[in-house]
């Protein structure tokens, strides 16, 4: 048993309205997801005494606390892009294990799709004040470009092909077709992916995630309280976190992410190995992101991700069920997708996923990746 193994569990999960939600603000979506997650757990707002949140440009826990009228004993706004929420799980479990608080709300929302339509520009892009940004933004560097640079390098070093990356998008779409909440449910083929418009070579449109409005919330509580709630607990078995850089030009090796560090820590804490994982929920802002995680988390060797996903290994019925809700590629992605990995993992452990349920799912791994392949955090969850 590792330091935090089974000291806490996720007992409530929910997403807000997802997809195109032009009539609701970020805070409304956070409130909606939170109230649904509390209802899912069978808990009241007054039970919450810890608060973690993050948003695309960070998000003050004070602002969320004020809006929801929560006065926490433990508060954490760790911001590492889409990997933030798996970090929050580790921090929440640690705070609960240390007796600082009992029940932590982790929440997020963003109205990214509607903000674009409304013409809300990312003004930060125009004012590269940090040292990092002033040496990237003037060249038109940005997130898709960063991931494309990694994909190009992986192809060069290991012979990875566009068809192999497309396997991931096709398999994820198959899972999405089984998720009534998913935005994109029409099946696609490998040819569809590689003939979709080139966005940043070698990444095509269908190698890239959606842009939607969406929020989510999860409730983490102590082992003692978790045993007597509405659903069986999704036990936190192991966690790990790391980051290696901020801007892609400072990434030491474009083919190796900090998932290597976060994954090793999580497996060690859980006392498990890659072979013990029944379902993997991996951050899929782009197909290349998934490929790198499969290697860095030890599901295959470095450079062999392309072979691993060939033949629809990760699709429904495949030997490696992955991104079972349809992922950021086909379900929803409002900018920081990591919380949705956890929501789906908990539902898989409860066995409530309907058509897309993986039979006998007992151990699920979630891995968040943030910013420009900059951060990673891993959470391994299990059921009794």
């Amino acid at each position, binding site marked *: 048993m590792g330091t935090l193994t089974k000291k806490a569990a996720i007992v409530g999960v929910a997403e807000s309205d997802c997809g195109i939600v032009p009539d609701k603000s970020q805070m409304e979506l956070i409130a909606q997801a939170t109230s649904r997650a509390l209802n899912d757990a069978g808990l009241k707002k007054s039970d919450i005494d810890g608060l973690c949140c993050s948003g695309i440009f960070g998000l003050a826990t004070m602002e969320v606390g004020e809006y929801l009228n929560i006065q926490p004993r433990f508060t954490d706004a760790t911001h590492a892009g889409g990997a933030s929420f798996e970090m929050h799980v580790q921090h929440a479990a640690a705070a609960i294990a240390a007796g600082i608080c009992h029940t932590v709300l982790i929440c997020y929302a963003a109205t990214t799709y509607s903000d674009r339509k409304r013409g809300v520009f*990312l003004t930060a*892009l*125009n*004012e*590269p*004040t940090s*040292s*990092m940004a*002033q*040496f*990237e*933004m*003037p*060249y*038109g*560097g*940005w*997130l*898709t*470009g960063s991931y*494309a*640079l*990694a*994909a*190009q*390098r992986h192809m*060069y070093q290991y012979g990875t092909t566009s068809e192999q990356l497309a396997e991931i998008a096709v398999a994820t779409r198959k899972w999405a077709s089984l998720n009534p909440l998913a935005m994109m449910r029409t099946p696609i083929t490998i040819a569809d992916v590689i003939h979709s*418009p*080139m*966005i*940043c*070579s*070698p*990444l095509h449109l269908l190698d890239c995630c959606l842009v939607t409005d969406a929020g989510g919330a999860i409730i983490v509580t102590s082992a003692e309280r978790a045993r007597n709630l509405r659903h069986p607990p999704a036990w936190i078995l192991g966690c790990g976190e790391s980051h290696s850089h901020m*801007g*892609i*030009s*400072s990434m030491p090796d*474009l083919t190796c992410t900090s998932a290597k560090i976060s994954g090793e820590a999580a497996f060690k804490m859980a006392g498990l190995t890659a072979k013990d994982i029944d379902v993997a929920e991996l951050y899929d802002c782009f197909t290349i992101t998934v490929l790198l995680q499969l290697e860095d988390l030890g599901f295959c060797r470095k450079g062999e991700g392309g072979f691993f996903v060939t033949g629809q290994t990760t699709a429904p019925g495949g030997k490696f069920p992955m991104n079972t809700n349809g992922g950021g590629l086909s379900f929803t992605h409002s900018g920081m997708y990591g919380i949705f990995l956890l929501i789906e993992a908990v539902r898989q452990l409860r066995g409530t996923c309907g058509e897309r349920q993986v039979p006998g799912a007992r151990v699920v791994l979630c891995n968040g990746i943030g910013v420009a392949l900059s951060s990673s955090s891993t959470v391994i969850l299990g059921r009794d």
Partner: protein
Amino acid sequence: MVDYKKPLPAIHEETRPFWEKAKKHELWLQKCRDCGKFRFYPRSICPNCFSYNTEWSRVSGRGKIYSFTVSNRPPLQAFQKDVPYCLALVDLEEGVRMMTNIVECQWEDLKIDMPVEVVFEDVTPLISLPKFRPTPVI
């Protein structure tokens, strides 16, 4: 040049020497006087050995493409007229990596490890951006 709409570096004291030299079409990097390593981007402390003992040194401007992408979808409208443009990471001979654009090149000729050399683009009266082109074969 007055109409330049793309993001410009918000220069501060740590990075000013780099941009002042770039304006003269020279590439200068910081080098640690204690551990001997070059570093990029500029910062007052050596990220390798944490020494403040630093000198600036003019460098060759030669390097190799570490990775590249040809972008059709820019982050900002201001880049739209450049599409498609090549965003690249270049490893300089001195052992540092920088983001840049590759210019004076057919996109189908781009290759990782391709030798490149610095050229400067005067984008405003104050700023010249170091970009790279394939090293001419002599």
